[in-house]
């Protein structure tokens, strides 16, 4: 029996289908990356696993229990960090620890929080406010907060996509190192196939939206620890990368045709430049069709 399971999950917003027939099963201790275009519904997918959204049809189960609401058993790292700006690094993590382990003594909580701050190498920034930290540091706080909750599963929603390339690489190594320490079940959403292949056990492409669905699941059989430089020459890496990208491009190709049919004309009525513009005889300025209040109908007598 799979640890996390999504069965025929669909979700639409305002009549527009975002995700369709999502089937996914993840074993305990597995690191799965889901890669897709921005706007394809990746965040919607992870929000449903987190319980922030409910699927329209199908169900999401963790340990055979249906997920109906968010909870601290699923640690989530949001794309935009979601740290509370009025709390320091320590307080942000403590808020989570307080909530997950209410029976611990204050000393034990402090020790626990500090352990995770150290794990993401932020001990010197312990008492800083989020606005005093760089994007990469903020995201590390967010990771530490999620891990400190000791969740059954860690959900990473494009955690590194707002960062510059160098910081991103450093944090990828850090995520990889932390994962090797505790082997938590991880679902990571990303828009970068390389990142997914470098970090995960399995990579699944998501087709382009609307109505996105998961593509074939590709097993990544590159031994750990992986070497960032060597991996680029690994034939298996190249092959996976090619398959993921090709699959995504193909799905996008189909999409283009579908979208072209839905093209809506702009509602601006342009200015007629052929009429000379003089002080007396003013040319009509461009206007929105929606703002036209009077319509003139000319009838031949």
């Amino acid at each position, binding site marked *: 029996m799979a640890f996390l399971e999504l069965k025929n999950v669909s979700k639409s917003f305002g009549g527009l289908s975002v995700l369709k027939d999502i089937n996914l099963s993840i074993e305990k201790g597995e690191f799965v990356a889901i890669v897709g275009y921005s706007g394809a519904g990746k965040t919607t997918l992870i929000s449903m696993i*987190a319980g*922030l959204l409910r699927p329209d049809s199908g169900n999401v189960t963790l340990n055979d229990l249906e997920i109906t*609401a*968010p*909870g*601290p058993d*699923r*640690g*989530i790292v*949001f794309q*935009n*960090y*979601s740290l*509370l*700006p*009025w*709390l320091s690094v320590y307080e942000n993590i403590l*808020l*989570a620890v307080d*909530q*997950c382990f209410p029976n611990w003594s204050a000393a034990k909580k402090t020790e626990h929080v500090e352990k995770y701050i150290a794990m993401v190498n932020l001990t010197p920034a312990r008492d800083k*406010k*989020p*606005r005093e930290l760089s994007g990469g540091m903020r995201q590390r706080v967010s990771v530490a907060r999620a891990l400190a*909750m000791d969740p059954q599963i860690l959900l990473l929603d494009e955690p590194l996509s707002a960062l510059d390339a160098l910081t991103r690489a450093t944090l990828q190594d850090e995520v990889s190192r932390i994962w090797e320490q505790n082997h938590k079940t991880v679902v990571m959403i990303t828009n970068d196939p390389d990142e997914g292949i470098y970090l995960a056990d399995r990579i699944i492409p998501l087709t382009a939206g609307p109505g996105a669905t998961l593509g074939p699941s590709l097993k990544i059989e590159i031994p750990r620890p992986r070497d960032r430089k060597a991996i680029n020459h690994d034939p298996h890496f190249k092959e996976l990368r090619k398959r993921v990208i090709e699959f995504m491009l193909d799905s996008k190709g189909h999409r283009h045709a579908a979208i072209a049919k839905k093209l809506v004309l702009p509602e601006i009525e342009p200015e007629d430049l052929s009429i000379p513009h003089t002080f007396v005889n003013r040319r009509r300025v461009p206007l929105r069709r929606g703002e036209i209040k009077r319509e003139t109908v000319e009838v031949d007598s």
Partner: protein
Amino acid sequence: MNQSALKKIDWLLLPMIGVAVVVILWAISSATWAKELPSPLKTWQTSKSYILEPFAKRGEMDQGILRFTWYSLILVAKGYALALIIGTPIGFFLGLSKPFAKTFDPIIQVLRPVSPLAWLPLGLVLFLSAGKNASELGALFTIAICAMWPTVLNTAVGVRAIPQDYLNVAKVLKLSRTKTLFKVLIPATLPYMFTGFRLSLGIAWLVIVAAEMLTGRPGVGGFLWQEYNALIYEHIILCIVTIGVVGFVLDRLMSLVERRFKTA
């Protein structure tokens, strides 16, 4: 001339030029078209004793100007506190609950522009049975009801502007309602709340003068009205200047507090 000296001119000399221009216009006006308007010099001579002995008490309505200011400030403080205590929770409810907002927003929009001069008689009537305290309670009622609107509206806007991210954090952590309120909602709304508090303080100070004028309580406004009736016009100007300076100082103090609470 170096840079810092130039800066000093900017914020010290230029405002003084502004004051001088107004005083000169005042002097010209009192000498030409407004014969009843006391000249600046005369105003100073007549008001001197009130300014130089600011805490003197010669009689109920004949006290140093700071003593009057002190009475006014105490009344404002009480009414303002009342406005915040009532206004902040109303603002929170308006921001949190759509049905609540739909129910009460129209009536708030109708009551908000009503002048303090209109509320005061109602306040006096409400507390008629309080006898001796009727004027104080009526004034408090007026200050509270006029000053609370900016707090109510700004708090409501602040609550609605809380980023979904923060609420998601609260949901994922399964924070209880009270914990969400104190750990997320209130801190996230504080900057907006303080903008409201500052605007409310400005209004409270506006209202106090009107309230004192109508009730005849000792204070800057009461003194102003009494001196108008006693035909000592110099003291009207003294009161206007005092009210303005105090209002300015209050606003500055509040903006310092406000800046302290600006997050991110």
